[in-house]
């Protein structure tokens, strides 16, 4: 099989793993002000404290892997999305240190809680904008970004930004429904009743908008064989949404999170259908951006051994911290 395709799949997997895993971390940060100061916030944070660092590492693999396997794409995309990416990084700084700092200095805990929430919101919004800006197209000349300073800022990219905020918040609420009990569990369930429609509406708007951005997307979705995807995809999303709603309403524990994951999975699959086989939509294909085979082959040796190992011990770490948390921590 084509090495470049394999690497595209690995990086897509890393990005998807990041979105899902750090998505619920960031979502809990977004929802943080909705929880009461004290035990409720402590349990919300305890639910992710042992795993956030590993979750975030998928972002580094996505970025680092892009540079290694598709250096041209890395070199064009990062300058094009300079401002939202720097905003994302600074947001992640606040989010990351808040996990430790808020326990260290109780007299400034309110400040670090605010930093945790603001950092999560900024990082999420910036990631959503990044996705939107990539989808709407980046101007390229030669081997470099040729657009302006504010090209990323459009109504569409703002829409994807808000859409991701709703999506991550729903993931966060689903995770808390699953992993907490008592007041924070009940509050998370109440929040999910608002967030689920918000996420579905915004996902619908993004899906309707996207085919009109570029001729390629329209072609991909509405001309045979794209119809194979176009017809079942909305039905699958609607089915998952229904199951999600029932799970929230009937008080299931893990099911709301699982069905939110399913909707995320479908959205990511739809995204892949839209842009394949480009890495910069409409401009650069994965083969044009690819590293030489000697570089891709060298990394593939490591990745094919190490990614399963990483998944193994990550699963073990989640197993160690299984079960409900409370404000008292792990029992």
């Amino acid at each position, binding site marked *: 099989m084509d090495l470049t395709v394999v690497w595209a799949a690995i990086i897509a997997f890393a990005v998807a793993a990041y979105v899902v895993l750090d998505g619920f971390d960031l979502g809990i940060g977004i929802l943080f002000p909705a929880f009461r100061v004290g035990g409720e916030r402590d349990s919300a944070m305890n639910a992710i404290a042992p795993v956030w660092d590993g979750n975030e590492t998928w972002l580094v693999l996505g970025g680092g892997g892009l540079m290694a396997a598709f250096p041209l794409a890395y070199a064009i995309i990062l300058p094009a999305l300079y401002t939202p990416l720097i905003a994302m990084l600074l947001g992640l700084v606040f989010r990351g240190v808040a996990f430790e700092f808020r326990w260290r200095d109780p007299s400034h805990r309110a400040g670090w809680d605010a930093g945790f929430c603001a950092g999560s919101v900024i990082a999420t919004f910036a990631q959503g904008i990044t996705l939107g800006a990539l989808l709407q197209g980046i101007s390229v000349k030669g081997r470099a970004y040729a657009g302006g300073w504010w090209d990323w800022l459009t109504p569409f990219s703002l829409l994807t930004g808000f859409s991701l905020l709703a999506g991550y918040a729903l993931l966060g609420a689903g995770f808390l429904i699953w992993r907490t009990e008592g007041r924070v569990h009940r509050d998370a369930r109440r929040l999910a009743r608002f967030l689920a429609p918000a996420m579905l509406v915004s996902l619908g708007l993004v899906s309707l908008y996207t085919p009109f951005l570029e001729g390629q997307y329209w072609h991909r979705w509405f001309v045979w064989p794209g119809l194979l995807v176009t017809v079942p995809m909305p039905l699958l999303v609607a089915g998952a949404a229904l199951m999600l709603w029932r799970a929230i309403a009937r008080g299931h524990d893990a099911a709301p999170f699982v069905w939110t994951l399913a909707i995320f999975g479908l959205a990511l699959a739809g995204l892949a259908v839209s842009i394949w086989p480009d890495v910069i939509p409409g401009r650069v294909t994965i083969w044009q951006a690819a590293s030489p085979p000697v570089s891709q082959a060298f990394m593939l040796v490591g990745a094919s051994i190490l990614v399963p190992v990483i998944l193994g011990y990550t699963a073990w770490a989640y197993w*160690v911290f299984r079960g409900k948390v409370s404000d008292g*921590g792990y029992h």
Partner: protein
Amino acid sequence: MTAAETALLLARAQFAFTVSFHFLFPSFSIGLASFLAVLEGLWLKTGKDHYLDLFRYWLKIFALAFAMGVVSGIVMSYQFGTNWSVYSDRAGPIVGPLMAYEVLTAFFLEAGFLGVMLFGMQKVGRGLHFAATCMVALGTFISAFWILSVNSWMQTPVGFATNAVGQFVPAHGWLEIIFNPSFPYRLVHTVIAAYLTTALAVGGVGAWHLLHGRKTAQVRTMFSMAMWMAALVAPVQILAGDEHGLNTLAHQPAKVMAMEGHFRSHPHGAPLILFGLPDSAAETVRYAIEIPKLSSLILKHDPNAPLAGLETIPKRDRPPVAIVFWSFRIMVGIGFAMLGLGLLSLLARVRGRLYDWPWLHRLALVMGPSGFVAVIAGWVTTEVGRQPWVIYGVMRTSEAVSPIATPGVTGSLMAFVIVYFAVFAAGTLYILKLMAHAPKPQESDPARAPIRSAGITPAPAQASGAGVAEEHR
């Protein structure tokens, strides 16, 4: 200055600022992770509780330093693309895979086991917990291996060819690239520096408590372990540094000329300039205090060996001399001061006064942060000494920069400075607060340990914390 030159300068300032900040945390966490593994191992082996006390005590500090290292490190992994996109495109096929291996072998290992190390003592049992601690320590070392391989390849690039689109690609396999000529020296020198930095910080904390009359078993143990480290490892570091210098002379002579302040060639033996004010415009070192022939003796092991000066290098290929000259002296000076501290501690040990010699403790306290200064000074020496090249002799820094506009890079630089100073000042303050309390025997008692397990949060602080936070709102 043209707009492009301004943007380049700002991009360089931004990279220098973010990487220097970041570098402080791994320097501390590489050493601390190994120290923690040793402490936990000693506790399991001897069953003596004061080792567990020390483990818990330093674990809290490690957690803070590690969190700051992680978030500042994520910034680094995106800086290559945002500010140095041409470099990323051309060097990506070589340095990209090495950094990807760092993520796969080191970052995931550290991150995956960190949760268990911090929160899992009651969940997984002693043996598995110790294994997790060792994995985190191993992860920090593997991380150093890969990133120093990348950095060393940029200093002494070998084993590459240029392809049709101008990218550097491996020519004869990866081993030659990974184990490039300066890599072994740089790896040894940097890892030892991390161990010394941690030892001096631990020793400084121990000295502080000894000076305040807290001569508990915990305080004595950490001070003694730190002083052993200084006494045994500082001389090794000086030897390693000397070897590294010889390697640099062989591969990057201009850097050594700048370190030594040699503008002119010395055909009959070069003097060692101890101090002076380098003046690049006049190509001389003003008010120099020199020891004749010593530079040749150190660098060539022959007092009369000829040494070339910067006059043999075209002006556009010379590094900025004054910065390299001074940062090198700061690093070396601190290195010898560490050696002095180690020797003094041996003397105190022989006389049985290790724990009651206030002057030794004062010196150790003052030198507590010196490792961090030496690490940054050494970093500046090697990185500024590489200029004007980003890949030595192959690609200029000015060719590597992204097509970015000045307002953007100015704004982001300001944002980084403000956020980093706010966040990392707070972090440093919290670390100092933790250090100001001596490790207590209670820290080992699982029944009285904080409920948030493994001693991450002192229980009283947690209990009162909510109330205080509420008042604040």
